[in-house]
């Protein structure tokens, strides 16, 4: 199971549930693995890693500038105290990926909404999301 396979399977599942989804969304010199539009219209960014949660967190910190909520997605594992503390520190959530068509994404730690700062990063992410949706990304 590669990260790309995880991302594609998760995107397909969200799409079947009629969420608007885009993968590989460029944002602030990075690329967000998956972005989808939540029921209320806010954008949810998800960064996938099979195991390396520190790297996932590092990349996700930038996503906080543009998304309404940010998650990292890992293969199921024990949630260490260090991981919990790091997630809480930044308000980033955690979902586990199960290779299961029924429900591949299961939330383990909920994400907080980042406090709004500058508005342009949110506009940039919205534009990039819409563009990727149009491209079918």
């Amino acid at each position: 199971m590669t990260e790309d396979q995880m991302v594609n399977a998760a995107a397909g599942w969200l799409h079947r549930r009629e969420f608007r989804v885009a993968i590989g969304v460029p944002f602030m010199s990075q690329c967000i693995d998956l972005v989808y539009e939540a029921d209320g219209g806010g954008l949810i960014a998800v960064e996938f890693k099979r195991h390396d949660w520190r790297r996932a967190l590092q990349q996700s910190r930038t996503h906080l500038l543009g998304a309404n909520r940010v998650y990292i997605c890992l293969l199921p594992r024990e949630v260490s105290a260090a991981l919990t503390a790091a997630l809480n520190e930044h308000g980033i959530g955690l979902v586990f990926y199960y290779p299961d068509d029924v429900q591949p994404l299961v939330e383990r730690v909920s994400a907080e909404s980042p406090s709004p700062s500058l508005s342009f990063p949110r506009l940039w992410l919205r534009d990039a999301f819409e563009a990727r949706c149009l491209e079918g990304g």
Partner: protein
Amino acid sequence: MAASNLPVHILRYGIHGEQRYFSELADCYDGIAINGNMLAHTPAALARFVGVRVVDRPFVIDPLTHAFQHDPQRLRRAYQGTLGGEGTALKSSVARMSTRFGEPVQSKAGREALLPEDFADGDLRRDFCHRVIEFQLQTMEEAAADGDYIQYLRYAGIQTMKPAVVIAPYFYMISNTLDHWLDLNIAFISDAVSYDSGLPVYAQLVIHPDILLRQDMSGRLITSYGSARCAGICLWIDELDEHSADAELLRRMAGLIEGLAASGRPVHNVYGGYLSTVLTKFGRLSGLCHGLEYGESRPVLPVGGGVPMARYYFPPLHKRIRYSEVVQILAAKGWNRDASEFHANVCDCETCHEVISGNVENFAMFGGSRAVTFQRAGQTITLNYPLPETRDRCLRHYLHCKRKEFRELQASTKEEVIARLRTGGQEYRSVLGLDAVAFVDAWVDVLDSL
């Protein structure tokens, strides 16, 4: 400080598209460095640039002779013929340089690596050295003479387009090859001085940082270059990044500069950042060179080239950082609401005032980019390339900051500089992480040791 034939703050010419910054921001630098491969490739464009656009700035040409000592494949480029054939050919700029330099370079370029024994014949070595000097002296003048603008130059009273100094041929040394190249490098200095070109001869000392950690080797360099007959020394420590180098390495770098300068010769750092700027006041460095927004550190390989990426120069840390990191800082510090807070805490240069224009949301204009998606090794990769206008703003901001750093330094004591560095390190460690600001302690160590 030893009197120098080179100015303190030198900008390295990177690509022709940057020419306008040299003329429009002429008060942000003192001199220009031009790489030999660039000169060989487009002599007329450079002659026009030097002759017409920035006539009042001294320039120096780096002959890049070290290019010929490495794996010769690095000097070749892949090509695809019109009839479907493919292969590699010597890069045209290298081919032109090698033609000008003559033997032993010409017959080996792109085929075999140049070795110290290739210069065993003293006459051949001297002739080579003289041609390298002539390349620096004549290439621009010849190109100017071929162009219509020679009339303009004469009208403007410009009789010569010679560099401020000439650089003797040089080769890169690592700790294991110092014994092989050192005597030859010193011999080239003597040959260059004996040639009597009418211009001061500078040595270019190019070393791997490992040499700094070997006291015996640094000592040999100080003795050898200290007794050489050159008028000055340009120092290039391979890929030494002042923001990430170990404190001990930086102290050794400052020590080498002290040792070389003790002979009374000016020493310039060929690729340096703010630490080097500080060493021009509190150490014995006579000057430094960097590119337009990049090039404060440079690996010896690849020779020349590289696509610069836009980043925002963050003045409190004297460092280019990712745009997203600046936005994170603005959000974390609450400087995203009031433009005056932005200018007080981040930057108050002309470019920032013009861009921000009373609204911090306009900081977006330093980050505009275009996403390009492509496939690499079966994976989809998306890179964000800065828009031309983004790069333009970042570059102008960078040069204004550099000018301010020099000016501010003139009015500062060492203690004030150290205090400002420490404040910056403390202020941003919680946002950027300790690794990103740990250089401050290393720099303070260096300054304390002076």
